């Protein structure tokens, strides 16, 4: 695949390194000369010096034949414009890093379906370590599905029931049940659930709150 990367910062550098290792054809467009020489020294001739939001620079980099254009600068406005130019000029697919999670809305409005938010990923990882959170986002899947981990307590409405006795939102599946001892099971309808279990569930993004009500019960927010 021919992959064009907008921005040669830390993310761009490591991304290029991985993609080159997987034998893809990779070009980074980076504005700062010192970054260009650092990357060239370490990864070889795979960098074009220039503004990744300048149409002529991207044309020179062959944006039209790119199978994939990835925006990874630290500025969301630059990432958006890079993706817009890439699409207009014929790149088959675009992926954008979104630095401020609030900006994801506009990327979606503009039809960029694949956005990656480091801030969100870090928050999700942190949440896994917090004892208070009951529903932890694990993974965003395509077509609006999300994988979450749900921890049951003794007072959860799902505790002391079997899987078939639960009222889950549509298109929700319990993939895995890990009991308090850390023993994993793939559940069927007769699998009993109890406090201390952790469930890995796939659900629709918009159903997460209802899933939480069904498995954890009323949300108490920060008062708990």
């Amino acid at each position, binding site marked *: 695949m021919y992959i064009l990367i907008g921005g040669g910062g830390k993310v761009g550098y490591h991304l290029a390194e991985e993609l080159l290792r997987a034998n893809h054809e990779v070009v980074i467009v980076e504005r700062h000369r010192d970054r260009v020489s650092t990357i060239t020294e370490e990864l070889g001739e795979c960098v074009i010096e220039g503004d990744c*939001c*300048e*149409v002529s620079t991207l044309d020179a980099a062959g944006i039209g034949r790119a199978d994939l254009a990835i925006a990874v600068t630290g500025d969301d*406005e*630059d990432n958006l414009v890079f993706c817009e130019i890439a699409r*207009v000029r014929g790149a088959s697919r675009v992926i954008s890093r979104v630095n401020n999670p*609030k900006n994801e809305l*506009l990327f979606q*409005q*503009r039809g960029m379906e694949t956005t990656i938010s480091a801030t969100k990923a870090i928050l999700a990882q942190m949440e896994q370590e917090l004892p208070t959170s009951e529903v932890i986002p694990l993974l965003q899947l395509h077509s609006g599905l999300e994988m979450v981990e749900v921890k049951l307590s003794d007072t959860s409405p799902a505790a002391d029931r079997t899987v078939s006795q639960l009222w889950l939102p549509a298109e929700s599946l319990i993939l895995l049940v890990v009991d308090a001892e850390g023993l994993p099971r793939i559940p069927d309808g007769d699998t009993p659930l109890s406090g201390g279990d952790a469930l890995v569930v796939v659900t629709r993004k918009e159903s997460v709150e209802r899933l939480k009500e069904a498995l954890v019960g009323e949300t108490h927010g920060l008062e708990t």
Partner: protein
Amino acid sequence: MKVIIMGCGRVGARVAGILDEKGHTVVVMDVRPDAFRRLPPGFGGTRSVGNGMDGPALERAGIKDADAFVAVTQGDNRNYFASQMAKEVYRVPRVLCRTYDPIRGELFAELGLETFSPTTIGAKIVLDLLMRDGEEAAD
């Protein structure tokens, strides 16, 4: 008409002043409060400190009932981002986006934005003046 102007530089401040004088409701946004010094004395509009790419800041500036949004910061990409926020997220009826780079400006226009390029306009004026003087000299 209620107009939000993003960027209180020379152009932003001037447009704001004139609209205010004509009796329109004007809100000027800038990330730096000292930029508002460029507004004319007696400016009756609102000064709103904030980033026009930020939803909550736009809402504070009253984007939800704005009739027009004008993006005139120094950054083409910032202007594009904020203009699309105004147009696509807040459905502002009229959105104007300044784009210094004429090629990028054309592309933004293809994507549905109303853009103008001071570069193109400035170049045209210079050429017109030069040519006119040239003609006069030739007479």
